[in-house]
């Protein structure tokens, strides 16, 4: 992969929480426009891995470069975060702001857009995620699936180059999962670079370029989805897939 085509590059990244080795010698490159799904048992380090990419988690060893910025440069972090969207498991919408205000806050205060421009951009994005009629609603007036779609629009409104998703559907009732996944599939098809921590294997099959399996802080296996699901190499991967696919 040429240097310009690399969006996220981990080289020998290690992180410990006290004695716990949460990221064990991670090396991984995600190219521009690539969609990478990360899965693994709980506590395997997948959330920590993705939270490193926009500097929400520091790490002790190794190098991580995102969009040409070395994460060890804490001063460059704010500029980098403008280019990297992050979607949380628990949405984290601002409860005192309407859907539209949630979406336009950062464009106005970080990008310096004027209110009219920001609102035009915000409206278009809320329409796009199917919430054109909910712009004036507060988060607590929306369902979980609607809140998560607002959260995605909030990230997109900064026009990021990369989108990170940390178990975006894990806190949702089953009937709301697809409305969120549909938005993410659309985004993937438009060519957004995405790293997605999820157990939604249907999503992985549909749009992932690669699936990564993590266990105990390390990347155990990386493969394109068809190989990953039909012919996993490692016993631990097979064991994990057996547990999540058999029902």
């Amino acid at each position, binding site marked *: 992969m040429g240097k310009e085509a690399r969006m996220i590059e981990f080289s020998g990244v290690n992180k410990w929480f006290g004695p716990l080795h949460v990221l064990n010698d991670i090396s991984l490159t995600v190219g521009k426009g690539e969609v990478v799904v990360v899965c693994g048992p709980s506590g395997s380090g997948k959330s920590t891995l993705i939270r490193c990419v*926009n500097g*929400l988690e520091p790490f002790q060893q190794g190098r991580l470069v995102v969009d040409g910025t070395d994460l060890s440069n804490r001063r460059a972090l*704010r*500029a980098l*975060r*403008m280019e*990297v*969207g*992050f979607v*949380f498991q*628990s949405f*984290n*919408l*601002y*409860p*005192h702001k309407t859907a539209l205000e949630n979406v336009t*806050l*950062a464009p106005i*205060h*970080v990008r310096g857009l004027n209110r009219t421009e920001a609102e035009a951009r915000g409206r278009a994005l809320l329409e796009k995620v199917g919430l054109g009629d909910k712009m004036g609603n*507060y988060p*607590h*007036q929306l369902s979980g699936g609607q809140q998560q779609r607002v*959260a995605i629009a*909030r*990230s997109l409104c*900064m026009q990021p180059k990369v989108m990170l998703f940390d178990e975006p559907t894990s806190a949702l009732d089953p009937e709301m999962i697809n409305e969120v996944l549909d938005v993410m599939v659309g985004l993937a098809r438009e060519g957004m670079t995405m790293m997605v921590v999820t157990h939604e294997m249907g999503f992985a099959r549909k749009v992932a370029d690669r699936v990564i399996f993590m266990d105990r802080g390390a990347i155990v296996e990386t493969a394109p989805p068809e190989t990953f699901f039909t012919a996993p190499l490692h016993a631990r991967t097979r064991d994990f897939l057996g547990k999540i696919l058999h029902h």
Partner: protein
Amino acid sequence: MLGGLNTRVMLEYLPEIWQGFLSTLWLSAAGFLGAMALGVLACALAIQPLRWLRAPAVAYVDVIRATPLLAQLYFLYFGLPRLGIVLPEMLIGIIALSLNSGAYMAEIIRSGILSIPRGQVEAGMSTGLGYMQRMRLIVLPQALRATVSPVIGQTIVLVKDSSLLSLISVVELTRAGQRIAIDRFMPVEGLVATALGYLVLYYALKSAAGAWSARNALPGRG
């Protein structure tokens, strides 16, 4: 006991009681402003990362919370002149009230800020908002909502605490009531008149709190 209340004497002292009431009102207002200023400052110092700035704020809150207001009041009343600082009793009283309530206000504001989930801050960070922007746009507006009720509660305490200023000869509501007791040997009449004054202030603050939460509640949520 109250059946035999001498309302004629109480009415006779109405001008004194009214003066005392006004005095309590403005001592409390001044104490409140001082307490909020000190509270915000002490809280800001207590939550910021530099240890040498945090230490004095924490020590201030601890010392005030550990000692009685009466002791703090006497300490200033007798201690300041020994440092060559001579101030009117009323000003000493306001300083004592401000210092005392300020420590509690600092704790109230701090717990309001700490009640905001970490995810709110992370959402702000993830879209590139800086520390001050996150505070101003995300954390403080939510923390303030959580803080108004306990701040008004502490203000009610402050109003009642201002009665201690009568002990350093500041004329306020309690002192005015004592006049009836001393001049006419009618302590109950004096105390009832005083209590009515405090009740008025209490209900004013209580309804202010109610009006504030009615106006600032998020739509569809209590």
